[in-house]
Each structure stands twice: as C-alpha cells, then as structure tokens.
C-alpha cells in the first residue's frame, strides 16, 4: 500500500494498549457491583420475611471467612464447580453448550465407584490414579455421545445432553439399587440407595482435620492450569478455539470442525466425570443419591463468572462456592426457608450476566470520550 494510506491508518487506529488497565478494573469490578445490587434486592426480600438483612449478610460473610471450617467448606464446594467449569470452558470455547454435566458427573461417580470396589485390594498408588482415569473416561463417554450425535447427525447438543442427564440418573438409580447396593443395608432391611463404602486405599487424603477438604482440590487446580495450557499453548487447543469462534474459517483452514466439537464435548464430559470421582473418593467415600448436588448447572454459572477462562475459573469457583456455603450458613443463622438461597443465587446470576454488557459499553464510551478532544483538533 502507498505511503499515504499507511499514515492515514496510523492516525485512525487507536492505540488499543493504553486503556487496558482501567478497562480491566472496570471488567473485574462490574460483577461485584452487580452482585451487590442483587444482594440489595435480596435484602428487600429478607425484610419482607422479617429478617434483618445486615444480620443475614453478616452471617454469610462471617460464616465463610470467619472460620477455618467455613473456608474449607467453600473450597470443598469450589472443587467440583471448578472441575465441571473446566469442561464447560472447553466446550464453550468450541461454541458447544454442555448442559449435560449432571449426567457426566454421575457417570464419573459410577465409574469411580465400580472400579474402586472391583479392585479393592490394589494399593493406593495404583488404585487412586486408575480410578481417576476410569472416571474421566466414563464421563467422557457421556460427553462423547452428544458430541458424536452432533458431529455425525447434527443433533443439537442442548437437547441430547438434557435427555442424557435424565438417562444417567435412571442408570444410577438402577445400579445403586441393584449390583452396587450396599449389602449392609440389605442385611439390615433398610435397602438404602447407596453403594458400599469404598476401600480406604481409594480415598483422597483429607487435608485438614474435621473437614472434608481433600487433595481433590489440588487436582482440580492442577487441571485448571493444564486446561489453560491445553487451550492456549497447544495445536489442539488452538483448533478448538478457532472452531468456536468461526467454524467457517476453520473449515477453510482444513480444521475438521465436527471432530473438534465432538472432542470438546468429550473432554468436557471427562472433567465432569472427574468431579464425580472427587465427590466419591474425597467427600462421601461411597456413591449415593444426589451425588451431583446440581454442580452440573452451577458449574456453568461458575464458568461464566470466571470469564470462561480456566485460570479465571479458579477464583470464580471459589467465590461461587463461598456464596453457596455462605447462603447455607445464613439459612441456619436466621432460619429463613432454604428456597431463599435459590432466589438470591438466581438474582446474582441474572445481574452478573446482565452487567457484562454495561461494562463493555462504559469502556467503549470512555475511549470515545478520551478521543473526542483529539478528533476535534485534527
């Protein structure tokens, strides 16, 4: 191009690097502002329930941050959120929406339980890693199915994953009442829907006495770093991101788009499966009903809080876990119906996703204002 155009472009292209700092500040402070607003509305609800909102919110804060047990509880909660969220991140980067984490957690938990019970006599150094791998594989099967259906038959993944969640639930019901049922319960005539206790050699070590915090948390953080490296440093990650941002351009570049979409769902399933394994091996030491605890859905929210970035997900899932734990503490402290927790969380989620646009817009406006003066002079 000619010299003139070069000059022209230089003058009209803003230097995008400069406003980065305050943009970042705005971006990070906005979700908190939104959360604050949501809690403000929650305060009105609390007042209607004749509960002092200050007392209630203080209970959240003190409950989580005021004691070792509160902190460990929030970490225990954050662990499956982080793990599930990582899968959601990978899928989202390939522009695939994974609603199926609930089912994938179940499969992972089933895989871990069956494996650990089948190879009870193995030493811990062999049993723990192999159980984790099996659970990853089991979860990825449940991610592969919708992935394959999408790649091969263009079946919408929202639909197939919703269906597969229901199927996984029934599968667990069936196994935990049949082959996997705790024989002690049968003997005692209680017929409880839970598996036998796993061998201690398969337990993830507890880190702090009197708490459920276990090495699973470190596994999850390690995985987050691995996923970050995977997505941003490897060729496969590069392709997954390309597919997610522009499938057409990716296809034109020789990337097998359906394959990478299926792969991302399969990996997402694997991470959700690991979450299931950590719940079984680190928290409950057995398979029981309600093992997913809704992490499949709240993991999506945590992933969003983390900006769909594996590293952002680490603080985000901790924050979200704290919120969940704190809400429980509040419920106990001021004895409000537990449904209020869902109301508060729903408001927080709505306000936080809604606020993303505002921060983007404000950032743009600031940029435009700062350039106005320059423009007028030229």
């Amino acid at each position, binding site marked *: *191009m000619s010299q003139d155009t070069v000059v022209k472009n230089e003058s009209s292209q803003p230097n995008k690097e400069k406003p980065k700092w305050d943009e970042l500040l705005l971006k990070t402070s906005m979700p908190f502002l939104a959360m604050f607003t949501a809690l403000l509305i929650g305060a009105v609800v609390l007042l209607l329930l004749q509960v002092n909102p200050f007392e209630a919110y203080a209970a959240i804060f003190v409950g989580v941050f005021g004691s070792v047990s509160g902190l460990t509880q929030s970490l225990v909660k954050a662990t499956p959120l982080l793990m599930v969220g990582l899968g959601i991140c990978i899928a989202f980067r390939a522009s695939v929406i994974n609603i199926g984490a609930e089912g994938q957690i179940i499969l992972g938990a089933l895989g871990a339980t069956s494996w650990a019970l089948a190879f009870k006599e193995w030493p811990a150094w062999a049993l723990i890693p192999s159980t984790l791998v099996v659970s990853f594989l089991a979860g990825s099967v449940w991610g592969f199915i919708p992935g394959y259906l999408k790649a091969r038959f263009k079946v919408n993944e929202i639909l197939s994953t919703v269906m597969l969640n229901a199927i996984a639930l029934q599968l667990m019901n069936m196994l935990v009442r049949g082959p996997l049922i705790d024989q002690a319960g049968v003997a005692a005539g209680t017929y409880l829907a839970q598996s036998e206790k796993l061998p201690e050699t398969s337990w993830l070590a507890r880190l702090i006495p009197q708490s459920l915090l276990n090495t699973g948390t470190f596994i999850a953080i390690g995985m987050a770093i691995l996923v970050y490296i995977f997505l941003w440093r490897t060729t496969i990650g590069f392709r997954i991101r390309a597919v997610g941002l*522009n499938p057409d351009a990716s296809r034109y570049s020789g990337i097998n788009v359906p394959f990478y979409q299926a792969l991302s769902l399969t990996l997402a399933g694997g991470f959700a499966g690991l979450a299931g394994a950590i719940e079984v091996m680190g928290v409950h030491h057995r398979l029981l009903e309600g093992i997913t605890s809704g992490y499949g859905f709240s993991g999506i929210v945590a992933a969003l809080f983390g900006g769909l970035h594996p590293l952002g997900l680490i603080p985000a899932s901790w924050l979200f876990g704290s919120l969940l734990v704190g809400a429980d503490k509040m419920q106990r402290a001021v004895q409000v119906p537990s449904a209020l927790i869902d109301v508060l969380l729903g408001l927080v989620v709505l306000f936080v996703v809604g606020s993303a646009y505002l921060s983007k817009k404000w950032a743009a406006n600031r940029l435009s204002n700062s*350039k106005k003066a320059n423009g007028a002079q030229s």
Partner: protein
Amino acid sequence: MSNSSSPAQARITSVEMRNIVKRFPGVLANYNVNFDVKAGEVHALLGENGAGKSTLMRQLYGLYKPDEGQILVDGKELVFNSPADAIRSGIGMIHQHFMLVPTLTVTENVALGLSSTREPMLDLDLVEKRVLELSKLYGLKVDPTAYIWQLSVGEQQRVEIIKALYRNAGIIILDEPTAVLTPQEVNDLFAILKKITAQGHGFIFISHKLHEVMAICDRVTVLRDGQMIGTRSTEGITRDDLVKMMVGRDVKPLPLQDHPEGEVRIKVAGLRAMGDRDAETLRGVDLEIRSGEILGIAGVSGNGQRELAQCLTGLRRASAGTILLDGEDITHMPLLQRMSAGQAYIPEERMQDGAIREFSVQENLFLRDHSAPENTHGIFLNFKRMEQRTREVVKEYSVKTPTIETPIKNLSGGNIQKLILARELSRQPKFLIAAQPTRGVDIGATEYIHQKLLEQRDSGTAILLISEDLDETRSLSDRIAVMFEGKIVGIVKRNQATVEQIGLMMAGVSMAEAMK
C-alpha cells in the same frame, strides 16, 4: 401495505446533510461533511476503505445518530432515531451485504415491517400484486413467490430496490451495489437506475470502481479520512483527478507484461461435483495451469466457479474426474494435506471464511500452518518462532496494526485482506486459488494486491484467479477461461478476445461462434 399502495402520494425530491460529525471509539469517521442529493440525479460517494462513506450513509438512514450536524429532507430539518424514521421520510438504503431474510419469500421480505390492510393478518396477495406492478414499471424482473435463498445475487439486489421503491423512497442509497455483481448484472443495474432516475428518484452511489462512477453519476463527492475533499460534476473530470482526490497521489493501472511460461502445475480433467442444492453444478471441467501463469476464470456467478474453487481446495467432494498437482493425484486429498503439498487459497468471503475476527493478527496468520513442524514442539505451539515470523510478514506486507496481538476485528478491511494475502503468499505456494481478491477493496489496496499477485506469478506459482470483475481478470490473467453452466466454454489468451466476445461466451455462446 396501505400507504404506498396509493402511488399518487408525493415523493421527496432532495436530501441534504450539513456539517456531519460522527465519532466511534478511537475513530473520527466523519468530520464536517456536507452532502446533498436531488431527485433525478445519481450522486457518487467516493473514498478509500474506511474513509467514512458507509458511516455517513448509515446516519442518513437512521442507523446511527450524528454527533453533530443536520439532516434536511426537502429543506426541512429532521432527526432520525431509527431506519423507520428515514423510511417514513422517503429514504431507502441498499446495503452491500443485502438486508434480506433468506428463509422468507420475496413478497414476505417486501412486506416485512409494513402495516397490513388487514391487520393483524398479512395481506401478502396485495403486496405481491404491487411487487409485480413495480417490477413491470421499472423493469425489475423477480419472482415474488421465490425464497431469497433461491435467488442469484443480482436478483437479490433487485428485491432490495423493489423494497425501497415499495416504500415510496424518493432518494435511495446504494452502498457498493456493484461489488458483488457480474458485468452483465452491472449493465442491467445501470439500465434500471437510469429508468428509475428518469421517473424522478435520486440515488446515492458508492463504489470503488471509477469507470462506473464516470458512467452513471452526475456528481461526485470524495471523502478522505472522514473529511470531505470536495464535490464535483462528473462532466469534464477524469479518472486521474478522482484518484488524486481520493488517495492524494496518482495510481496508474498496472502495465501488462508477458512472461515465460513453465511446466504444467495443475491439471484438471473431467471434474464433476454436486452443488449445495443437490444438482450437479460442475459438469466436466478440464483445464491446465502452468507454473508462472495466472489463469483467470470469467463467468456469470453461479456457473460453477465457487464449486470449482472448493473442489480444488478440497472443501467439496468431486463426484468424478481428477485433479493433478505436479502430476500427483490430489482429487480426494483432504484440505490439510493439500496445503502442505503447496496449495494456497484466498477465499471469496474474507471475513466469513478467511479469518477469525476475535483472533489476533498472529493467530490469524497461522490459522492454516499452526501445526507445521517448524511452528510446533510436539503438540505445543512454538510461539517464539511464530512471533518472529509474524513480525517479518507484517512488515513485508505492510499490514497496519497496533500490535501483532491485536484482534483483527480492529483492523480495516483492506488490512485484513492484506493479512490473508500475506498468509497465503508467504508460504510460497506452488498453486494459489484467489477468489475475488479485491472485492470491496479500495484503489490503493487493489493496486497493491495486484502487484503482489503478479510478483507471485513471476516467482513461479500457478494462480487460478476467480473474479467477477472482468477488468481485473483481463488485466491480470495470462489466459482466461470462460465458465458457463458448469463447463469451460473456451480458453483465450490475453488480448485475444474483446470484452464483448468474452461476454458472449459467458452467456453460453461457443468459443468458435463468439470469436467470429
């Protein structure tokens, strides 16, 4: 629709924009621009990519609000908050990327947004009748019951014009209407424009092709860098004057040069393929391209050019026939392998297929070659080498970007096209497919791209050029192959055939007959 089914209604006769200022974050898109257009004239708006033409027009059409300045319709100042306001005031706009809903019929697209005589029910039968009337009155041939996705680009454009006329637009904006048209379609369009202008409508015409401006416009306004350079009558003005106003210097057409031909690089024989709609669109194509040769494909769009390019790149499966690259059969080779075998491709839809808006300059540059051995350590990307290479390429191709980490959505269209060009050429391909490489690109950038393509040819690459701009095809190609209905009708050497003769062949006349 009730209001315009009465054609007697008065139509506006003039529009004026005064001292328009429009800013975007970090960009002064328009600064103190004055512009006006009257019924019965075609007023051209000229300027390089990013000069602010579309932005100015979007304000006139109510899509953006001016930061400063006034808009006057028939002398009365008006404020447009949305396109609805502009439409109501008698202004129509036809965008370069058509604003049509592909899954709706022509009639439904016209009826969209209008109130019906039978609210809440649609009165599609009445709309259809009126569409047929308009189409007869102005010579705009379309089938009102067809779905938009079934129509050719030219037909879609006619639907756009009907949409504007249906809404009783007195002044109609055409933003780069010819960029996507074949020469025949351009001629048809000009005939239609003349007819409509004669009936008391005014047009604003944006184009990067100066001969079109000279051919159809009465006045021309030039923008540069958001500012107004001036308004002239096209009478007595030359192409060179306009270029100087736009670019600030002279840009001369490339001198044509012959050059020695090499070995046969690519050999296509009996190639057949299905189109998107389950009909055979490639019906036995034979051609050869030699090393150091540009073969141009001329043809009315929809005659198989797209499918040919896709078969050659590996994006579409050939149902019969063979493709040989340096003697090796690559007919069923996957795209990735062909790329490493030395094939490169500049896709037609550059933003859609050629690049990823959110990716950085560097990432886009390695969109295709990121897994080449020199760019990786195992499964890990070799950032150091990629960064270094990006810096070199950006410099060599003078891609203007703040940093190599900048997402390309922040780059101008011309720079994006240069980046794609850089990506494809810098791998030193044996064979390059260039589809519409300068569509919508301004004069300066076009000159640059042409020069690069010729340099590549001279270095021994075989180039297949697919362009709907016959001038471009004629000025760059060593040989021109004319396509009609999925076959090559004839191949002529440069200067062997006149525009008219090529045009005849494009219409399906056999080579022997056309050359008589």
